[in-house]
């Protein structure tokens, strides 16, 4: 606990009160509140250097010259903070946000088009499109009937949380809707950057080879759902579905795997079920 202000004192609780019933619920018991107020503003600090509290990421500065300053700060902490804010925003409105990741050409956009059409009026769908260049995908998605925002990352190889934050402000999705984020086609970097989504959905297609999950394990490990797309041409390209599923299971035994065809609509019901259940 904080020795100077007692802010993580067990007595310092966070409660939720329902004024109608008078019911009190304990939300938090001290300790996690450091971000809520600024320690530097406490004038009862008797010394002029900050002391970091164990577990938080505040620096511990001792002097100006040749000093070593301990940070212990995650390099992606800024992105992660914004991502958490996004996540809270989505949760608060009951908006389901999914981060779709795949290599280029796996059929994410076609998948989105069919998803938008098949979900029909049941749930409003919004799309955030990430590509290095062009707004072709956003146009396609708009034509399919969803409001879309395109983010062009330029040289960047992935979307970051602040981009989603900006896009969501623009989109202003209605409560209870679905926000589908189509990440930049890339199986490497997007796995590192939390956007605030409920979960990642990896898309792999039958033309890519069954061993892709083994080649890019990070992405498949980070995804809760894996869609095997282009099942309509599986036979022609001699795709071994069982092998692919076993490779996915090897890197991520918990992943829910659905084999679909965004073109013909095979097993699309199962994918729509995921959207309904979350």
């Amino acid at each position: 606990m904080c020795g100077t202000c007692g802010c993580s004192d067990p007595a310092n609780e966070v409660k939720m009160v329902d004024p109608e019933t008078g019911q009190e619920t304990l939300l938090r018991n001290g300790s996690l509140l450091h971000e809520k107020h600024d320690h530097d503003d406490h004038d009862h600090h008797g010394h002029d250097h900050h002391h970091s509290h164990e577990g938080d990421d505040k620096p511990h500065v001792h002097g100006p010259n040749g000093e070593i300053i301990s940070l212990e700060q995650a390099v992606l902490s800024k992105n992660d903070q914004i991502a958490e804010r996004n996540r809270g925003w989505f949760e608060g409105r009951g908006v389901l946000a999914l981060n779709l990741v795949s290599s280029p050409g796996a059929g994410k956009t076609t998948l989105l088009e069919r998803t938008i059409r098949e979900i029909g009026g049941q749930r409003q769908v919004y799309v955030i499109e990430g590509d290095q260049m062009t707004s072709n995908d956003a146009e396609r998605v708009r034509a399919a009937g969803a409001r879309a925002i395109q983010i062009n990352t330029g040289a960047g190889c992935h979307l970051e949380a602040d981009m989603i934050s900006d896009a969501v402000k623009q989109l202003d999705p209605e409560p209870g809707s679905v926000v589908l984020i189509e990440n930049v086609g890339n199986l490497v970097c997007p796995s590192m950057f939390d956007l605030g989504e409920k979960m990642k959905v990896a898309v792999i297609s039958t033309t890519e080879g069954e061993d892709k999950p083994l080649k890019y394990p990070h992405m498949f490990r980070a995804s809760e759902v894996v869609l095997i797309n282009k099942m309509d041409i599986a036979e022609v390209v001699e795709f071994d579905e069982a092998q692919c599923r076993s490779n996915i299971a090897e890197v991520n035994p918990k992943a829910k795997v659905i084999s679909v065809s965004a073109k013909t609509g095979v097993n699309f019901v199962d994918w729509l079920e995921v959207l309904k259940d979350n």
Partner: protein
Amino acid sequence: MHELGLSRNIVSIVRENAGDKPVSRVKLAIGPLACVETKALEFCWEIVTQDSPLDGAKLEIVEAEADTFLIKEFELEEVA
């Protein structure tokens, strides 16, 4: 090449904490599952630190567990 963006993140975090004071060394901890290519990071480091208070700062990398990717500490330059 997300290492370029990552190096920028590192520089901005260190600058936030060091102010305009010159920095001579930055120590990172990187785990094998962090998806960070240390060679690429070192390559970007010089470019990203140029003309900043971190110009010439040594990048020290220690191995860590799992997907750790932390700035452990940094050292301010000795001003005589």
